[in-house]
């Protein structure tokens, strides 16, 4: 049963989301199969990364603001949220979330006559996404909070001199400046969140019907062939491409945030290491 590479792509290109050939290759593994299946797994890495970053951005803004609040009833919970998610390993957070979600009643919950189904929360697409969302929100909130604190005093004084106060000052001066100052660090956060998505199927969340992410399939091939020298470099290749793409997209945003500044004072994006969370 030998397939051409294009047939392999048709059979396994969308395997990670359950479309195409159901049976994974069992013998005679080709490079093409490995590239296709691992690439198919990247769909999940993209899904987790893009959604967690999108939702996390909004929560991060809210938490960064809450941490700057004077009222301790608002500030303290935000501080604790950031401390818990930044101070413990993501790996443990995945396990903990899974065990907690499993404890929800199996048959669902009835509130005010409405039946809520709970079984989907233990699935990776929902449960792991929730953890990644909260996790990136905490890390990003720390970045935005730091940026908020380093807004130049002169900018705020100038805004007040123009008669801006409260919401208007925030939305026109503080928020854009915060984003501009925090953006290089936030770019790194985005890159390493994508890297963190590879942990999903290696922690509490099981993969159903062998539908996993890129690393799941790479691990499958390494286990089957006893040869780590092909599948892992393939995942590495995909992630280097993804890193370049993220750097490009965030670089465009950075350019827009800095467009009013003379070229020598613009903030540049530099990759900083922050591998595991």
């Amino acid at each position, binding site marked *: 049963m030998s397939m051409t590479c294009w047939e392999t792509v048709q059979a396994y290109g969308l395997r990670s989301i359950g479309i195409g050939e159901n049976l994974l290759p069992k013998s005679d593994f080709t490079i093409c199969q490995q590239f296709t299946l691992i690439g198919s797994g990247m769909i999940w890495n993209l899904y987790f990364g893009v959604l967690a970053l999108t939702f996390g951005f909004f929560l991060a803004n809210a938490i960064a603001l809450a941490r700057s609040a004077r009222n301790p009833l608002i500030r303290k919970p935000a501080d604790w949220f950031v401390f818990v998610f930044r101070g413990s390993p993501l790996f443990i957070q995945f396990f903990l979330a899974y065990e907690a979600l499993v404890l929800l009643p199996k048959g669902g919950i009835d509130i005010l006559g409405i039946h809520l189904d709970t079984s989907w929360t233990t699935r990776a697409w929902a449960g792991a996404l929730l953890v990644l969302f909260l996790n990136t929100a905490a890390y990003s909130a720390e970045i935005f909070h730091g940026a908020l604190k380093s807004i130049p005093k002169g900018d705020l004084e100038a805004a007040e001199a123009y008669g801006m106060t409260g919401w208007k000052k925030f939305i026109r001066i503080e928020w854009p400046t915060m984003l501009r100052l925090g953006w290089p660090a936030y770019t790194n956060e985005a890159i390493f969140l*994508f890297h963190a998505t590879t942990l999903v199927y290696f922690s509490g969340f099981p993969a159903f019907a062998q539908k996993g992410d890129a*690393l799941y399939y*790479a691990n499958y091939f390494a286990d089957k062939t006893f040869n780590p020298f092909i599948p*892992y470099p393939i995942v590495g290749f995909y992630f280097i491409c993804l890193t370049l793409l993220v750097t490009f997209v965030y670089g465009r945003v950075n350019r827009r945030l800095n467009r009013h500044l003379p070229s020598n004072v613009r903030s540049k994006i530099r990759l900083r290491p922050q591998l595991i969370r």
Partner: protein
Amino acid sequence: MFSYCADPKALAESVWVSIPWLEDSRLLSWVVDFFNSLPWMSCYLTSAKHVDFYWSFVTVLLLLAITAPAALGMGFMGATAARSHVAPVSWLGKIYIWMVRGVPDIIFFLFFVIALDQGIEYVKNLAVCDGGAWPWQGLEFRVCPEAKVPLAKSSAFWHQAYGFMLAVVTFAIVFGAFVANVIYGAMLAVPRAQLETAEAYGMSRAQVFRRILVPQMWVYALPGLGNLWMILIKATPLLFLLGVKDIVYFARELGGSKTQAYEYPHGDWRLWYFLGLMVFYLVFTRISEIGIGKLTRKLSHGQATAGGEALRKAAA
């Protein structure tokens, strides 16, 4: 551990405290239950398996204690190589630094452990097996029994120790690259004028490196190294993925529900075990944060940085 632990099942049934009015209270009956469960709990938490669990925390600390200096050494060599004036050495250092950046580190962890293991067995295979055949054949990695590391007849301890050693080397390689990156940046951050002054005093390149550059660079490297230390702490659960019986392994083992066939039957308690691990890590990172803060203050003393200036003003 305790003398009364001989029959845990009877212990679970027995009643030590009885306060009828409290038991009748719907809100407070748990207080009595709590006191009655204490003897059982004290036996449960000191069972042989739990003692192994507590020792696995030492494994984690041991990993940190060995990996941190090893990674620092690897990083120092990497950064020095990247600064070298000999082009191939400099390339080697830079490739090592950039390699780990674009790729998720967990891939390196999974890759290096198998690659190192196979590499060691391949070299041993060349030495001890007749002919030393190419071991990657079809879907197998096959070397002769004498080339297995550790040998199949070795005790379980050696298998564990070998797995641990592979994990340490992997951690040192991956974290060494991150340390190299931080140290490389810190060496560039040392004011050029200081090195020129040293050269003007007639110091050789090696002397400038040893006496000026290396002592000065630490204060610039410390924020990055502190960050890496926190990351290293949070990376230790990956030991579980590398097949070492670490705290995550035991938390899953001990927490899983135990039927009546076991000495201490209980439901699924994994949530509580993982909460315990979470608290361990939170306390550990918090203590580290405070320690790094103190170290930064100490190293900033007398330095031409904003931190050093603040210390000088506070003292004056």
